[in-house]
């Protein structure tokens, strides 16, 4: 099972090393980890994608909460949520036929070309992990030169929305 955990942590030196070290030393498998400041400069947010059963998830959550600089941990994936990855790719696409095919894929996936070189283009795309994976698969035949991903970030939806009307929407964007 894939789970998304989100932790608010004190923005102090060493907190990332502390948490990643703790997870590694206890043998937990972290799929991705994204870190950034929040609106409060004292507090950062870390988003983890972890793989494991519920027992493993419970232990990871408790071990995270035990770290003194961790303020709060949420299990995002247990609630209705939006999750996104940001990816930059460089794809070989010389001017001419290939480049327009790539542009077509970019349009279909609602990605953006952000830089154009003589023989390649740089593309920006955000969305759910599986959409990004699908996009990468479609581009593979053209020759992917480089990929950078941020890892998943996620946020729980407002409770006022009925989840019935929102679950599909998340996968289409």
């Amino acid at each position, binding site marked *: 099972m894939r789970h998304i955990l989100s932790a608010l942590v004190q923005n102090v030196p060493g907190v990332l090393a502390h948490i990643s070290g703790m997870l590694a030393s206890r043998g937990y498998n972290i799929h991705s980890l994204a870190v950034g400041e929040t609106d409060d400069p004292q507090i950062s947010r870390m988003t983890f994608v972890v793989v494991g059963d519920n027992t493993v998830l419970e232990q990871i959550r408790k071990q995270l909460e*035990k770290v003194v*600089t961790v303020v709060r941990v949420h299990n995002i994936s247990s609630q209705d949520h939006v999750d996104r990855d940001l990816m930059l790719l460089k794809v070989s696409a010389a001017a001419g036929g290939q480049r327009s095919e790539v542009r077509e894929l970019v349009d279909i996936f609602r990605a953006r070309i952000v830089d154009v070189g003589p023989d390649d283009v740089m593309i920006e795309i955000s969305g759910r992990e599986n959409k990004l994976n699908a996009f990468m698969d479609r581009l593979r035949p053209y020759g992917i030169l480089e990929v950078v991903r941020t890892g998943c970030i996620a946020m729980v939806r407002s409770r006022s929305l009925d989840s019935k009307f929102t679950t599909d929407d998340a996968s289409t964007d």
Partner: protein
Amino acid sequence: MSVESTKGSPLLTGADLLVQSLIDHGTEILFAYPGGASMPLHQALTRYADQLRTVLPRHEQGGGFAAQGYARSTGRPGVCMATSGPGATNLVTAIADAKLDSIPLVAITGQVKTPVIGTDAFQETPIIEVCRGITKHHYLITDVGDVSRVMREAFHIATTGRPGPVLVDVPKDVQEATWDAADDGLMDLPGYQIEDRRAPDEQIKQVVAAIKLAKRPMLYCGGGIIASGASDLLRQLVDKTGIPVTMTVMGLGAFPHHHPLSLDMLGMHGSVYANRAVRDSDLLIALGVRFDDRVTGKLAEFARHAKIIHIDIDPSELNKNKPAHIPIVSDVKFALNELTRLVEPKTDIEDWVRCCQQSKAEHPFGYDEQFDGILQQHAIAELSKLTNDRKTIVSVGVGQHQMWTAQFFAFNHPRRFLCSSGLGTMGFGLPAAMGAQAAHPDALVVDIDGDGSFQMNVQELATCFCEDLPVKVMLLNNQHLGMVVQWEDRFMAGNRAHTYLGPIHHPEASGQGAGQYASERYPDFVAIAKGYGCGAATVSKKSDLAGALEEMIQYKGPYLLDVEVPYQEHVLPMIPSGQTVDDIITE
């Protein structure tokens, strides 16, 4: 201190602020070994010498374990200090040990000056990086204005919730910089909320109901009882309900050995009766324990028929190793208080209790009492008998002598048995005894040690002598690493693999020794102890033992009694690793 801040209060150096803070937190004694990067701290310690005793160990690890001995025997935080680099890394084992046994410890290290941190400067190690995984928390102070706050947080974190070690790394320039002495340095710990660790009413009621229904209940008690100061409450609960008690190594002393409902220690070298009672129980009430593998053996079979109630202050211990039917996050003392108040007396478990007590009578811890020489178990039982009417604190190293002490020394009070239980650190005994003696000048403090463990911190005899700490060492000298020898004998066809402690050309080194005793004894422990200024004697004959022990107890200063014991004696009973009570070896 003529310089003043803008507010009119005096300016103090970081080192003075830190030492002042130790005093404010009730520190009476610290164990500190100086070096280049901690000199300002030591200079400050001399300025506060009338309020704070500084003991100089002979190795930083000894200082770390002495601080633990202080903490384990008093319940108050132990404090140790070392310089940067090698001084700091020498503390690492003592810090890891405190983490696994949940001992409140504040470890302070000097660090190279902030401008050269990260340049591989002389005696620089990134000690915070080294210790992240083995501390409860850690600080590198980079601003003298943070000293008071960090020290306040360090003591708070070390002593509250599940206690543990906190490391504070202080660069030399921070020690030398000045700051306003009146600055309060309030704590800022948004992520450390331990005030709500109290079992809610409904959970206590669930426990009460479970106890009411149980026909074969057992209490499984650990170090958490001692850490939370709940021994008296445990006694009250047992008096009210009549439920039998077993203890982990960390829990020994939480419930009196002489109580008829005590089933003593459980686990790998625990009693037959405790392990069988756990196997047969239908309700296991686990208090301040962590279902360690040395206790449970094969997890799936452990207390297989029992409903499990697990109460612990650390939520991450619940369902970690063994799923609990009723997991409760709570300070054990609070939970026991509520439980004792609400629980109804049990009147329907007489048969069960009789069965447990009969088992206890049938399978006591035993040894060959007819043996011609001195067996380790006999020496420990004899010491226990000779000291049971006085306040005696016992520390141990790690190995056979440690388990025999757990089995044969009668612990009737908490905080009297100091034992590196989780990490299993050889060399723990002597320095831990030293720290306990510093905290309890009037108590008899005995390190029951093995010749392997003892040599790992033998240099602390110098501290005992020079600092007037009259620690006694009862050295069970079998010339071998006895516990490893036992495993070699049991599981590796007796092949000796570097477990003989004498010269390598001796026949014992290859397992060719004749008889029960090593043919020659090495080193001369009596000469070593005397060289350090301690009293010392050897005893080999059983008939001389009581007199020799009496002489040791009466001696004014530190004393070593070298007891010649055989090396083919095994710690029994034994449940082999990963197996169950039904696989227990009793001979």
